[in-house]
């Protein structure tokens, strides 16, 4: 915690006051006024910088107005070997949930996003333990549960992988996030996949707090996660 600059300025100001009686009256009052204005400005600046310097205040990602609500959406959770209950898109109380729609046959965007998230969490340290990840496959035919667990597991140990072969259900969930994806099987047997490639941070009420377009990078994610984690701690 930085020393409170306001206190430092006040101390200096008081010192000056005691020195004042030794100087002629006219000069004293002039100096007094200037010193008090300077002190006031410094104190204000000190308070402002002391308040703002510990945590960045502006989210770099995008926020929608009105915010997107995804708490009503859910998908089968295939993280455990035994299929459990459906996963609902809400963070645990006191946590944040990062959601990404991707696929494992994605050599560029998906590994980059997951690697950036890993870097951001590492840099924040233990405070980032409240950040959970849900990876939804948009290519369920090729991405089996085993592949998903292995793939996402190589980036982090705290995650959920969600998969459904029900295209309508997947599309409905994507729509809730204002995301989309297209999987096209080409005549030559190759598969083309397009997806919105954004990452979403959701709170325990199921509100999307911020949306990161691809390219925001580890620094952007770190910036926003620090702010959002701080907000969790101060209700």
């Amino acid at each position, binding site marked *: 915690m930085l020393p409170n600059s306001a206190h430092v300025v006040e101390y200096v100001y008081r010192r000056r006051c005691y020195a004042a009686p030794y100087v002629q009256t006219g000069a004293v009052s002039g100096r007094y006024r200037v010193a008090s204005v300077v002190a006031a400005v410094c104190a204000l600046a000190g308070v402002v910088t002391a308040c703002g310097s510990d945590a960045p205040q502006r*989210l770099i990602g995008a926020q929608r107005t009105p915010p997107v609500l995804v708490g009503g959406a859910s998908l089968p959770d295939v993280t455990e070997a035994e299929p459990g209950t459906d996963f609902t898109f809400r963070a645990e109380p006191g946590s944040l949930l990062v959601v990404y729609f991707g696929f494992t046959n994605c*050599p560029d965007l998906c590994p*980059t996003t997951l*690697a950036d998230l890993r870097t951001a969490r590492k840099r924040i340290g233990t405070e980032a333990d409240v950040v959970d990840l849900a990876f939804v496959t948009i290519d369920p035919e090729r991405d089996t549960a085993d592949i998903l667990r292995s*793939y996402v597991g190589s980036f982090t140990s705290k995650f959920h992988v969600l998969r459904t072969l029900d295209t309508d259900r997947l599309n409905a969930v994507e729509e809730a996030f204002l995301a989309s994806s297209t999987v096209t099987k080409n005549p030559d047997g190759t598969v083309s996949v397009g997806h919105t490639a954004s990452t979403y941070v959701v709170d325990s009420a199921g509100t999307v707090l911020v949306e990161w377009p691809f*390219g925001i990078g580890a620094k952007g994610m770190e910036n926003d996660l620090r702010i959002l984690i701080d907000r969790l701690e101060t209700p």
Partner: protein
Amino acid sequence: MITRRILLAAAASTLVLAACSNSDKEATPKVTVENVWARQSPMATDLGAVYLDITSSADDTLTGASVPASIARTVEIHEMAMVSNMGDSGMMGDSGMSSGGEMVMREVDKIDLPAGTTVSLKPGGYHVMLIGLVNALKAGDTFEVTLTLGSGTTTTATATVRETAPE
């Protein structure tokens, strides 16, 4: 004395001539490839991406790439492109980037290399895609990447496998 001057002049002119002929050799385009890296393979994938910065001293194009067969089966050059999506809400955020379009990866025949300009193949943009990795790429591994240019020049650089992008 005069002899020495003549000798000096001869030496000087020889040097100049040598310099001139050297600059003739410099006429072949020079290609510089730097910051070549590949991402460590997440498990359960046989695809990889190599990123690099390439500068050609003359206008040229990057038309192909190859790696040893012990690394990957096929190599292609790909780009990530934004395809517009119906129903785009047109949202903009602080980052100045809009979302709503889908990113699609597709193969490209060539990447233009304007003379003297460094073209970066980086995440979200172009990359050299490795298809059918023989073994998962592990951080610290290195392998040769040979790049082919439209002019016929080929150049080889060493790629280093990393966990995260170099900053």
